[in-house]
């Protein structure tokens, strides 16, 4: 059953018709549509979007950390349809103790580096990713800098007394 906020959105209806368990909610705010997808069904929805709804581009993948609220992580997918000139934001919420989701590289190659970046900076694991290594930080770095509980200053080393 579609929530009332989404009853006018054809894209939400398409997801609902394709896989009723996938859509969790969403809203259109400041002219941008975001839909929340169940993490277990994300690859299915992405593939459906690409094959049936003409979303031929994955613009980017990123994450937002809402620490200390649980589920703290929000993995955000920006889809873009060139033929329809449409943009769509999909989100998956993940708990801090189960920060794991299927990789979108099976659908778009573009997801490769974006997911590596999210893995590196947020510590979210992507299942079935072909090459999940750190991309920005050194390989021996401890911690994930874009988490909200990672300090902006004074990680590990303190230079105050020098």
């Amino acid at each position, binding site marked *: 059953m579609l929530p009332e906020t989404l009853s006018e959105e054809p894209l939400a209806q398409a997801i609902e018709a394709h896989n009723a368990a996938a859509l969790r909610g969403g809203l259109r705010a400041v002219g941008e549509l975001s839909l929340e997808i169940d993490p277990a069904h994300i690859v299915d929805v992405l593939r459906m979007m690409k094959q049936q709804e003409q979303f031929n581009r994955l613009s980017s993948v990123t994450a*937002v950390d809402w620490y200390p609220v649980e589920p703290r992580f929000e993995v955000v997918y920006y889809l873009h349809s060139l033929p329809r000139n449409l943009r769509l934001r999909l989100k998956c919420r993940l708990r801090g103790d189960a920060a794991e989701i299927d990789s979108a590289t099976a659908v778009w190659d573009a997801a490769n580096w974006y997911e590596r970046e999210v893995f590196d900076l947020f510590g979210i694991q992507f299942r079935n990713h072909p090459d999940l290594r750190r991309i920005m930080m050194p390989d021996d770095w401890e911690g994930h800098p874009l988490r909200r509980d990672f300090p902006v200053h004074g990680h590990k080393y303190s230079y105050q007394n020098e």
Partner: protein
Amino acid sequence: MSELDLQSASVEAERHGETRRMTLNMGPQHPSTHGVLRILLELEGEVILKAQPVLGYLHTGIEKQCEALNWNQVTTLTDRADYLANLSNNLAYALAVERLLQLEIPPKAQWMRVLLCELTRINSHVVWLGTHAMDLGAMTVFFYCFREREELLKIFEKFSGQRLMTSYIRIGGLALEPPRDWREPVENFIKGFPAKVDEYEALLNANPIFLKRTQGVGTLALDRLLDLGVTGPMIRAAGLGWDIRKAEPYSSYDKFDFKVPVYQESDVFSRYRVRMEEMRESAKIVQQAMDGMPEGPHMADAPHVVYPEREKMKTQMEALIYHFKIVTEGMRVPVGEACVPVESPRGEIAYHVVSDGTAKPHRVFMRTPSFGNLQSLTPLFEGRLIADTIAALGSMDFVLGDVDR
């Protein structure tokens, strides 16, 4: 093995018709990477079997720093991501925050933004052309290009007081009222510029070395490019006329008349042709913006967001209070998230801005064109000759500050 042993071993191997695989480390301090990019190449003879880019040498944690600064301060960091197209970055960030604030931007500020972004496009393409041509052995083009770049930097300095990190486009409009005599240098530059592009083309279009090194080199099919997340001139050189300025007009780009150059070959030469024509089109847009520049304020009428005018602060109580609030607490942005794509010289740039209602952004994600375009490096290199790497690398036109952030 000593060096001599290695040499004799390879001679021995060649005599028996065997080839050895070699791993070559290109960069991080290679001149043609224009920054610090490292690529691990696995070679068999002159053919690249595997190419693996290693990023992160310029990672400065800009997105993390954004979370520690207030909304207005972040503008200065956006300059430093893509340091060749700083005004496009300013604009992408400002547009996203303005969408959250639901601000109405006065027409003069919008047109001025268009004018400055097109000058930025010329500036970026000129630097690209000069360095790309120099990588391919055409030294003179570099000097010609940097001659024009100097003029552009003087224009930016006139507007903002800064040559490189201008931060001139702010949330709500422009940082300052444009200087009274801004038209003269812009007019002079735009008048002479098409002839300068002719000069560059005269040096390159019939240059046999340049043609041999660029035509048919670094090709990649359009659907592969789209799959890899490539945007901008690389897409337009592969036969798709997609330009965000036309498809999703922002800042009143829909009021300007310009063409989107498209080529079909998807090789290094067609990318060069696309960018050359883009420079000519940008010059036309600047001319239109100058001719039709509306009058009016340069900042939106939103006292809770924009700094009040200096004069008003000295005479009006409210202006003083607003200034004090914005400076000490920072302005607040309503809860929500926004993302406005902008066509930067390199492709699609979009800032995903998340606000939790406080004076600092909760999250600023920069979807930068260089990062997306650089993903095409591996398929552009693998199975090709090592001599073509420099041409292919240059044709991508990435900025490492934009890749690593």
